């Protein structure tokens, strides 16, 4: 009896998936293992970013177009800290998360009173301003010269170099973020967010302080984005303002829309499918049509909203499954 229950339990499904991922570096892929590993590391990084962004549109129903601003803030925090003070990744991650949360609150507090559309535009303005500051404040970020020479992360003194080490590191980060997001989802905070998403007026009358919970959602989402940025800087060893353009926000938004806004499994699935897709397209598409990839992402957004707005793993079905599971657990 306990085994059937276990089989359907989402936690078990995630754990087995991650266990399978751990085997990936040892699969016999021959020459292109590193290339495959690098693509999968990017995919897992975008999974983390998508989980972070999912908290704002997915849980609370607010469209956040400025997510790449926090991603950039996290990356530059990590880059600058490791160049000037040579801190290790384990010190930088919490600092980057705090910095992201700080900026999330500074942006969120005054703007979360606005209606949906205006809020989306203000977050968009914020991320463009972040890119401008990153590009023009030479004294801080060396502007368009970028930040080369960021030291790679090191565990117990051994600096990580090969791709499978980075892959395991990003898997570890994914598990931490997954833990955080699932705990939040099934807690008082998560229910308050879902209430805000379903019906703000009713949520208010149930005692949910709208502004406070929206700002908390925004701050947590920003800190996860900044953490992703911190890893990215350490992994890439070079960051440049043009890497944090508006397009990244659209790509991450596309992941959660494709996967299913509000459902954790859907967001992860979305990232797992769409990110490697761009590499496959690079091999398939002829030389000239190279930026046709962005065309396809734009199309995905339009078609998904048209025919399946709830995404691959609809939030409603996930809730029903969760409720069924709770019922069975109660009967045992």
């Amino acid at each position, binding site marked *: 009896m306990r085994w059937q229950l276990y089989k359907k339990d989402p936690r078990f499904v995630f754990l087995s998936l991650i266990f399978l991922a751990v085997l990936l570096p040892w*699969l016999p892929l021959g*020459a292109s293992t590193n290339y495959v590993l690098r693509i999968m590391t990017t995919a897992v990084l975008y999974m983390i970013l998508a989980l972070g962004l999912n908290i704002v549109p997915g849980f609370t129903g607010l469209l956040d177009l400025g997510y790449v601003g926090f991603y950039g803030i996290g990356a530059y925090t990590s880059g600058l800290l490791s160049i000037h003070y040579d801190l290790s990744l384990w010190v930088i991650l919490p600092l980057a998360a705090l910095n992201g949360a700080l900026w999330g609150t500074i942006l969120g507090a005054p703007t979360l009173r606005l209606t949906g559309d205006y809020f989306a535009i203000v977050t968009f303005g914020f991320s463009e301003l972040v890119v401008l500051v990153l590009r023009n404040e030479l004294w801080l970020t060396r502007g368009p010269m970028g930040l080369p020479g960021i030291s790679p992360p090191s565990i117990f003194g051994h600096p990580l170099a090969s791709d499978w080490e980075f892959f395991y590191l990003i898997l570890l980060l994914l598990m931490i973020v997954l833990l955080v997001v699932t705990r939040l989802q099934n807690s008082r905070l998560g229910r308050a967010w879902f209430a805000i998403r379903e019906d703000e007026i009713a949520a208010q009358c149930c005692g949910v302080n709208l502004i406070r919970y929206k700002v908390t959602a925004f701050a947590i989402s920003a800190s996860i984005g900044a953490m992703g940025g911190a890893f990215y800087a350490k992994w890439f060893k*070079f960051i440049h303002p043009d890497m944090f353009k508006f397009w990244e926000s659209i790509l991450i938004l596309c992941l959660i829309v494709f996967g299913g806004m509000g459902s954790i499994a859907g967001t992860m699935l979305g990232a797992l499918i769409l990110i490697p897709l761009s590499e496959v397209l690079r091999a*398939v598409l002829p030389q*000239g049509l190279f*930026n046709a990839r962005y065309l396809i992402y734009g199309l995905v957004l339009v078609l998904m909203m048209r025919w399946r707005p709830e995404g691959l793993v609809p939030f409603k079905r996930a809730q029903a499954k969760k409720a069924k599971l709770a019922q069975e657990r109660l009967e045992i």
Partner: protein
Amino acid sequence: MRKLGCFLFAWILLTGATWADSIKIPIAAPFTGPLASFGEGMKNGALLKGEEINAAGGINGKNVDIVLEDELCDPKEAATVATKLANDPKVSVVVGHLCSSSTLAALPIYRGAKLPAISPASTNVSIGKMSPYYFRNVYRDDFQGLFLAKYVKIVKGYKKVAIFYEVNDYSMGLMLAFMKEAKKLGIKVLGTEAYTADTTDFKPQLTKFKMMKPDAIFIPGYAPQGTLIISQARSLGMKNVAFFGADGLDDDLMVKNPDTEGLFVTTPFLPDKAGPQAAGFVKAYRKKFGKDPNWFAANTYDAVGIGAQAIKAVGRNREKIRDYLASINSKDRAYDGVAGKTYFDKNGDCLKEAYVKKIKNGKWVSAEKQLQ
């Protein structure tokens, strides 16, 4: 679980390398995107050199396969392309990366895989000391800025100059070098104004320059924005102000615009000033592509030549090729290419002469007075 498994399998097929035995020399440059016209020059130069090598029996009997890798001048793409090349055992030397930001992104990956790379077009100053595996057969921005300041002072004799730079590493590197030398030579820099890659309205900044009444305006940016700046300046009534720029403006796009009469730029390659092989190269290039080669084509032609020569000499081991390239470090051992003699210093940079050419009634013509 089932979905994940079959997905991975289908994917391995796609990225599995083709096993036919030929020497692969990849060219990493922006073939699409805003700077596609520069990438095109590199493509033609490399293809031409590839044909010539194969016509002469290839390297140690094996044919040379020129592979074009498009990186859109975007650091993220460059890193993905670099990983792909670093993992390909058939690649032993890379000719590539035009934009400095994508070069900086690819550097750590090449160093990690001990893969030597020769850049025919990346002129940023800070790249040299970054990695022992990186060489380039083009001069650096600071040398170019210094040369331009000297040329402006001695040959043109301008006293008051304004600088209109684009906010990117190439353009700012040139500006800083030029201003340092200009201060030494007594040229007064009236002011500097900035623009971004996607600006089209330069009138506010140009109006400011108009009021300063400079003798000349230095545009260290790229050609697409250069033509706009010059024609918008002319329409603002700045008729007698001269314009000059660096290798970024050296492109046919400038010739099509009638306002750019009298514009002069520095360039590493002039058909009539270079050696005898240059004449052969220019004829072959015009026959194959129907237009004169710009300096990107010439430098890439040389870079592929240097790479082929290294492979011929020491085989396909990456470490040995790197040592061979590092050994070309003096004038007598230099590679005598189309764009002059190329030899590398300890940072992998090279010291090459710079020439000046200008637009005279609608054609690129080498300037009368060169500065040696």
